[in-house]
Structure formats: C-alpha cells, structure tokens
C-alpha cells in the first residue's frame, strides 16, 4: 500500500482536499459567452451573405440578447473576482501569454460592437424609437451603411470569443482534464450550437427555423465527434490524463456527463431535429431548450471536474 498525506494539517479553504476555486460564475460566463458568440456570428454571417431579410430572427431579434448575455457574463466574472476593486488592472496591460487577458480585451471589443449592432436595428424593431440627438442619428446612418463591414468584424470576434471560452480552460497545464487543445474548437462549436438554439426559439419563420436546425444538426455531429476525440486523446495520454478521463468513464461524473450532456443535450435534440426535418411534428422549443440545457451542464461539469484533476497527491 502506498500512502501520501499532509501531516502538517494543511486544509486551506477552496484548495483542499481538492481545488474548488471557481464556482458557478465561471461556467455560467463560459455558457453566456459562447451563446453570445453563436448569436453574433450567425447575425454577421447572414448579413455578409446578403440574406438579412430572409433571416429576420437571426439578424435582428436574437442579437438583442447578445449584449444582455455578455453583460450578465461579465457580471458573473466580476462576481467571481476576489479582489474586485482592482479589476481595472486588467486594462492596464496586454499580456499575450494569458488567455484571461485575451478574454478581457475581446469582451471589451465585442460587447460595444454588439450594442452598436443592436442599436442599428432599434428603429426597425421598435418603430417609435428615436435617438433624440442628431449626432447619434448620424452615427446610426453610418453604421447602417457599413453594416457588412461591421458584420465581418463581429464574426471574427465571435470566433475569438467562442474559442477563448475553451482556451481559458485548456491553457491550464496543471489541470489534466482541461489541458487539451480540443477544448477550444469544442467550446466554439458548442457555443455556436447554443446560439443557434436561442435563435430557433425566437424565430417565427418556419423556413428560417428549418435552415438553422440543419446547421445546428451539423454542429451537434461535429461536437459528438470532438467529444469522442477528447476521450481518445485522454486515454492515449499520460497517467494524469487517463485519470482525468476516468472521472467520466466510471468515475463520479459518468452519469451526469453521459446522460445530461451527451444523451439529453446532444443526441436527443439531434434525433428530434432530424425527425422534424423529415416532416414529423415535434414541439419546436424542445430540441432548442435541450441544447441550451446540455450546453450549460457541459460547462458546469467541465469546470467542476477539471478542478479535481491534478498531478500530485
């Protein structure tokens, strides 16, 4: 029998017996960030493709939620900080090595961008809306003229934001469960999928819903493919990586992950969407809600389980 234990009474809150320094705020923020990235990407995408008129919910309605999600996410992040009053230190420096610095600056760009985007559609959405000041009206006119350009910038930043939500975790070498580069694309795809699901919920146009469902289906398949690769990578990895994978393959997270994330959050909605596309009647909100639920669960589980995985003791 091998035994390794602390004999100096080490029992630091949130560090021992296993790390629990990030609570609900971080996974919630990762979820909201991915969701906003998904919404903004497709709003940009269909604008660039010139199909804004046929994809009303995608381009006009859903982006209303993006700044709200981003601000809520930022609020959660701020809540998570232990030394809140010093948060401005984030914006005194650019640190290329630090994903968190990247994220702070990305949010600094994409949140105002999303607000400008929403503002440019305010008059279309609410016909009684008036900007009151002439310079604001001039600015609006300029934005509307350059919408395609704005759409391109927004798409680029949406991808950065989506990837960043995964990279934030995967950059931590010390947590074997997170330390895989697949997490970047996986979180991007999952975030886009939740963004699409939100848009599907808002859309009243059956044609638009059908188009979005088709794309979503592709994303779900990619996601399942990436999850498979994630575990293949772990199982072919070092001892710590295998231990990390075992949390999900027989360990304490097995049921929550495979039932809530994979079955209820991915496979079940994929089947429902396929049935719908084949012409069967399916409650239109069900697959979307399941995807959102699965996406949220996925981030909670990854953050919680990742903190348990470690090198020593």
């Amino acid at each position, binding site marked *: *029998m091998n*035994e390794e234990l602390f*004999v*100096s*009474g080490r029992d630091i809150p949130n560090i021992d017996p296993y790390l629990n320094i990030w609570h609900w705020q971080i996974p919630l923020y990762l979820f909201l960030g991915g969701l906003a990235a998904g919404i903004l990407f497709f709003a940009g995408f269909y604008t660039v493709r010139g199909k804004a008129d046929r994809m009303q919910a995608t381009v006009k309605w859903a982006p209303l939620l993006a700044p709200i999600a981003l601000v809520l996410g930022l609020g959660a992040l701020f809540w998570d900080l232990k030394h809140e009053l010093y948060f401005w230190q984030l914006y005194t420096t650019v640190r290329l090595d630090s994903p968190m610095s990247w994220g702070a600056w990305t949010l600094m760009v994409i949140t105002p961008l999303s607000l400008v985007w929403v503002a440019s559609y305010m008059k279309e959405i609410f016909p009684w809306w008036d900007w009151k000041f002439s310079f604001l009206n001039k600015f609006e006119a300029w934005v509307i003229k350059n919408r395609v350009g704005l759409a391109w910038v927004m798409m680029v930043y949406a991808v950065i934001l989506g990837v960043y939500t995964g990279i934030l975790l995967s950059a931590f070498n010390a947590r074997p469960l997170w330390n895989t580069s697949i997490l970047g694309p996986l979180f991007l795809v999952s975030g886009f999928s939740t963004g699409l699901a939100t848009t599907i919920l808002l859309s009243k146009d059956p044609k638009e819903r059908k188009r979005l469902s088709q794309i979503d289906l592709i994303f779900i398949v990619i996601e399942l493919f990436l999850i498979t690769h994630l575990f293949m990578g772990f199982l072919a990895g070092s001892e710590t990586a295998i231990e990390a994978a075992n949390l999900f393959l027989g360990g304490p997270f097995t049921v929550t992950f495979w039932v809530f994330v994979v079955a209820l959050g991915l496979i079940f909605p994929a089947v429902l969407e396929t049935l719908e596309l084949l012409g069967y009647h399916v409650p239109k909100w069900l697959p979307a809600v399941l995807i959102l639920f699965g996406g949220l669960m996925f981030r909670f589980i990854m953050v919680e389980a990742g903190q348990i995985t470690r090198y020593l003791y």
Partner: protein
Amino acid sequence: MPAAEPKYESKPGWWITKQIGERLGLHDYFNYNDFSEVIDWQLKQMGTSLEEMKKIGVKEYPRKSGPLYLGEGEEFKFNTSTGKVELYSVDLADEGFDAMPVYKAHPEPPQNFYRLIYGRAPMHTFSRTSNNPNLWDLMSENAVWVNPKVADLWGLKKDQEVWLKNQDGAITTFPVKVRVTERIRWDSVYMVHGFGHSDKKLSRAFGRGASDEELITNIAVDPIMGGTGMRGNFITFLKENPATERKEDKA
C-alpha cells in the same frame, strides 16, 4: 527570567506558589517579593550573582572531582561488587533474581484485540500543547493507526470514527479517526498521546481525538528495578457510539 513577558492573566509558577503559601500562613518560607531575589541568592552561594550571569550567560569553574577521562594504563574499579563491568550480576543473583536477563514471553493480545502502542508526534509536547493555536493548526487530533489487513478484516475506512475498548472494558470518551497505514504491525495499533481532552475550557482541543490514557488500565512493573510498562494493554474497535448503546440498555 522570562524571555518574553507573560500574556493576559498568565502568572509565573513561583507567584502562584507564593500566593498559596501566604494564604496558608507560611510567609516565612516565601520571604521574597520577586523570584529573581531567590535566584540571586542561589547564585551568590556559587560565588557569582544574577547581575553577573545576565552579562556573561555561562560561567566555568575548574573541575574539583578530577579529570573526566581515564589516563592510559590507569587502574580503575567500577562501582560494582566485582569492580568490573558486569554482564553477569552477582548482586542480582544474591537477591534471588536472574543474574543474566532471561527472555520471558510477554502477554499476547486475545482474539480481535490489538496491542495499544502510544507515542509522540514531533509537533506536540505531551498533552500540554494541544490547545496552542499554531500547533493545533499543524495537528488538531490524533488517529488510531491500523494495518490495512486489520482494516480489511473490520471493514474500517480511512477517517472513519471508532471508539476503542480495552481488555478491562474501559472505553474512550471520544471517537478517534482511523488511519489505515503499513506503518503499524497487524497485531498492534498506534496512537499519539495527548489528545481527547475532556475539559471544555480547552476551546480548541476539547473532544479532538481520543486519549490513550483512558485505555491504560494495566501497568506492568519490572520486578527487579520497578520500571513501569504501559504498552501491555489490548484494545478492540467499537464502530457504534457506546454512549447511545448504554442509553438504549437503560431504556
């Protein structure tokens, strides 16, 4: 001479003794205001003084009892009846004891009992430091060390709380956590001495771990030199709180 001034209501031992003495009407035996006067008097008998010792710390006097080591070829007699180093003790033989130690098998634990071995932890000094905040942080309770084979037999898990009962039916007041470790034999258990305090005024140490003293009811005495051996007690594990069982018995 205290190196650091005592904190709060702490009083030096001499002060407490003097107060008791005064109240018993023994003023003549405590004829000083401060113990430094006594130390000074004692040092003066040695030909120095407190003032001097405070300055120099150590004072060396020439040896009066002769050289410390034997010289080469010097005749020497040890303080024994043969004048030699004795492996065979004539004196012991005269008194009717074994002149050379003869091995006698020590009592073995009965079935399901284990020899209780107690010892110390490097963090604590006996039982008196267990309420010290810094040292309490280091080690706040003891554990009963159990060999993995024994743990398997009893179904004991790491950190499971058990009560211990010895061969005379003495039971620990408080439960103690199990540590499953190869560092103890399968016929014995080990625990650090100095825990399981029952005084609630020891705000930190109260009820932490179990006290080995409660289980030491059998004290072996060496028939020759009177030394005591307290590791001849045998314990067994109680997985349920014996206090609740006792209540049920009454009801």
